[in-house]
């Protein structure tokens, strides 16, 4: 087997193992209420961190103004309880428009 295939297999098996942690533990070990509370809060914390780093950074540096501005437009639309489609399309369209106008 060549090295690329081994790399893919290691990545696939490792990733699947991470993903199995929850489903395998569930129902086997009694998970204390406090830990359950923290895992569900932890999921939201991870998602917010992903959204913050995804909106503002690219390859370890600042992602430029167009992307965070577009995400901000999406955030304002979501705050005003706009439908999901409007939030997502609005964010992408705002970013695309800013880029077309020359804003990086």
């Amino acid at each position: 087997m060549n090295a690329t295939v081994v790399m893919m297999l290691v990545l696939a098996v490792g990733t699947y193992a991470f993903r199995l942690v929850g489903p395998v533990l569930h129902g086997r070990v009694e998970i204390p209420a406090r830990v359950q509370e923290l895992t569900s809060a932890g999921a939201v914390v991870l998602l917010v961190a992903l959204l913050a780093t995804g909106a503002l950074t690219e390859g370890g540096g600042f992602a430029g103004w167009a992307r965070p501005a577009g995400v901000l437009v999406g955030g304002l639309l979501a705050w005003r309880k706009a439908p999901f489609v409007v939030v997502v399309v609005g964010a992408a369209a705002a970013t695309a428009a800013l880029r077309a106008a020359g804003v990086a």
Partner: protein
Amino acid sequence: MRSVQRTSDDMSLVRDSSLVWLACGVVGVSFGAVSVAGGLPVWVPVVMSLVVYAGSAQFSAVGVLLAGGGPVAAAATGLLLNTRTAAFSLAVAEIIGTGRAARFLGAHLVTDETVAFALAQSDPVRRRRAFWISGLGLFAVWNFGVAAGALAGSALGDTVRYGLDAAFPAVLVALVLPQVRADGAVRRCAVLGAVIALVATPAVPAGVPVLLALAGLFLHRREPVEVTA
């Protein structure tokens, strides 16, 4: 009437997740195209997407590989990025279901997008349906997109032009906003976590900042003891 209700519920879940599918499908096309343009054979991105099934980790692994970093560094980077799926799988374990097949199949479908989509639903039945509908759809669209991109090459050109890189953070904003609004304790943790992740980003390898954000849970105080027992 019940089944009519359920069908319209499912339709709204499909409608909302189809946007996520569309955005991820285009990213999949670019993953396939980038991999093949970089010199990998067509089957590599295709098989990788089926068995690894994790967008950011795939991009990083292929990036490291194409940059000459070697397979060990590529696998390590991808695994580091996917460590968070362990935390996500704990959060959705109950939602996935308890049957053996559901657990083993559902585990493979645990992604940022699907977890966010499921957790954003209000009741347990809807959460489960949201997980499976968004998860199976995303798996299909992602793999189809990657295969199409690998075969077609870089026909789409620079996808940054379409502003799609803003779509995923916006999806997350829309999905987490209700929970962040409703729960002050979660809000404090999330804000601290996001600040930690942003400050750490320039200094640590990709994947680590988001894990460090979990330190924000430090602000999650123990709820007062309930007297219902």
